[in-house]
């Protein structure tokens, strides 16, 4: 026995959530060749087929690119702080990819480890994640190499499996998932199944072994020569989570803002003295791989990558975790 829902009912539900004051985000076509997770204006905005995965990730809605931490007013010599403690409105992320949802437990660790990040956690508590199991994979996908697969339920409150002809099986994994779908689905005999994952592209253990033993190695320089040091890979990655805290100045209404940061920027580790412990791009690329395959796993027991392939799809010069990991693995 299974629970199923039709695409039109699903769109209707999304519209209902929006009308009920929830913020609903999901894939939407922004330009002919660009699909992004966006806040949806209507159920019809939701794009369910015809693309591999959005160019951004759902972290945008939990760990946004700019988050106001607090405001301030300057009165003569004193400064008045204005807390930003407004509760986040309830939010639903619909048709997330499994490789997006799986990144949330990864972020949870980071934002609750030595410091409980109230902004992230507030959003997290107010968010329900409805994942759509993949029905295709492309040459950049490698979820199976990092222990996931196209039907992975990790991080999801509910997961949908396409049954064809506009029907989906709904499996609720948490209370939040049930709260959205209970009473909205129909009973059926049909059950969905995700597609088989992409063939394993590399052995993550071997990558970890390499990065922990080849800190100084010509490999990094050779590999990183064409990396231009932008933030594209990190910013479109569902799991990357480095941030900076900046003063957005009076033009922005005097706010202190948390913004994304990337280890690929040359300024990321620049000291005030002018010294930079990661002086060239090779050391920055090494850091990215080291963090994903060794540092984070040592601390939290899992890889800091879900194999979504966004870094490769978005990199302006055709790099990305997959190409480095395969190069390491296959020499």
């Amino acid at each position: 026995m299974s629970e199923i829902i039709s695409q039109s009912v699903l769109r209707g539900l999304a519209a209902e959530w929006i009308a009920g004051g929830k913020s609903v985000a999901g894939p939407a076509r922004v330009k002919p060749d660009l699909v992004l997770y966006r806040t949806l204006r209507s159920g019809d905005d939701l794009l369910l087929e015809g693309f591999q995965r959005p160019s951004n990730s759902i972290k945008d809605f939990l760990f946004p690119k700019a988050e106001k931490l607090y405001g301030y007013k300057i009165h003569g010599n004193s400064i008045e702080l204005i807390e930003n403690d407004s509760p986040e409105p309830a939010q639903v992320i619909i048709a997330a990819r499994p490789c997006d949802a799986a990144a949330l437990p990864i972020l949870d660790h980071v934002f609750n480890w030595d410091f409980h990040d109230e902004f992230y956690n507030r959003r997290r508590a107010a968010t329900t994640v409805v994942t759509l199991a993949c029905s295709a994979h492309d040459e950049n996908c490698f979820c199976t190499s990092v222990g996931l697969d196209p039907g992975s339920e990790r991080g999801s409150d509910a997961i949908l499996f396409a049954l064809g002809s506009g029907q989906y099986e709904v499996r609720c994994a948490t209370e939040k998932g049930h709260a959205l779908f209970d009473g909205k689905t129909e009973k059926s005999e049909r059950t969905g199944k995700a597609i088989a994952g992409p063939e394993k592209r590399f052995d993550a253990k071997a990558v970890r072994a390499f990065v922990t033993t080849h800190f100084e190695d010509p490999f990094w320089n050779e590999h990183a020569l064409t990396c231009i040091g932008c933030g594209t890979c990190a910013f479109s990655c569902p799991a990357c989570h480095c941030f900076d805290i900046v003063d957005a100045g009076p033009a922005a209404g005097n706010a202190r803002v948390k913004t994304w940061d990337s280890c690929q920027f040359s300024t990321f580790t620049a000291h005030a003295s002018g010294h930079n412990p990661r002086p060239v791009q090779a050391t920055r690329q090494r850091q990215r791989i080291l963090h994903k395959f060794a540092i984070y796993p040592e601390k939290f027991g899992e890889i800091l990558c879900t194999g979504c392939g966004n870094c490769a799809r978005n990199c302006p010069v055709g790099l990305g975790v997959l190409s480095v990991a395969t190069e390491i693995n296959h020499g």
Partner: protein
Amino acid sequence: MSKAQEFEPKIVAYVCNWCTYLGADLAGTARLEYPPNVRIIRLPCTGRIDFNLIIKALEVGADGVLVSGCHPGDCHYTAGNYHARRRWILFRELLDTLGIDLRRIQFTWISAAEGRKWQQVVTEFTDQTRKLGPYKELYATGPFPDVPAPETASPGVKSFAAESELREVCGKLLAEGTVKVVIGYGARGPVVVTRAEDAERLVWNNRCFSNLTAYLKRKEIKSLGKAAVIVKPCDEKSLVELEKEAQFERKDAHVIGMACEGVDQPKCAHCTARTPRFADVTLGVEAGPEPQTSPSPNRFAALMAMPPAERMAFWTEEFNRCVKCYACRQVCPMCYCERCIVDKNRPIAIDPAPSTKGNFAWHIARAFHLAGRCVGCGECSRACPAGIDLALLNISLHIAAQKNFGYEAGIDPKAEPVIGSYTLHDTEAFIR
């Protein structure tokens, strides 16, 4: 509306220290009355009135901005105002493309003796701004008609005939030690080849998008020794500009020019450069599609056909997607500053947050720092993960440089760069 509630505009005046400031002072000592709406900010010279300041004034809530300095010929530093005039001519075109209300920015020349002109300009500009009302449209969203999206690359790979010759030539250059590295294209993107036998990795096909000249500035590449760089005719234009800006010397690189068959990018449809002109060696035969006769893509015309408020709404929507990954800057051959203005934080010049305001500030700075320098390689637009049509801003300034100064970046190695030079008779019709 009662008198007390009537709208009083806030006006910021950036004035030069030597003429307009003294003119305003004279108005005061001569007891000439003018509206108290103006907050004067004194700078050494109009040449030092950065365009970012004009924008910043509007951002912090000014309803109008006045910019004034010495008359042409009278600048205390000889030519500051001639430089300023050039920049204003171009800057206004950028602002217009962005949909900023040009009626809210007034440029004037007011000398130390012209207390009366100061009085007049301030009075009239204040009245006009009062009539316009508060500047609420700055960075406002709203409906706008669609600007056609640029056509994008076809996914299939089509190899060009010169590929094998290219490999041969590069292999030879490396084997003979003429160069130590070759910056070229590989199957997935740019590759840096240092061994002759690796020249086999080089490809030449319709997916050779990158402007590889951007790598010449990178110290990791420089440290490898003399480089050969593969350029398409459009990429070669950046070498022309870089040389003028003393960022590149021909003797430092071996330029391999590829006669171009097109790389399926929007720029290719209206490209007129089909064969490199200055390369040390040129390979292949040009065989691209016929260039369109219209010089600028229709989408720019479509944008400019909208009313300013709709243009602003369009850009707000575009910029709101910007994540400040700076891929647009990093791929750009003309963005070579050691430390970009957006990365400066002592003090912060550009709001670093990827918010609406912070993004406008970034995009205005990016586009204007490339005014008359951008060679239209289109890499910034291609690199942007948010699909922002940055080329539209570049095109606007490209047209402005051509229209006002007859300058086209990357074409004539002898022509003086637009920014950094001036003539005594640069013409405009907007400075009072």
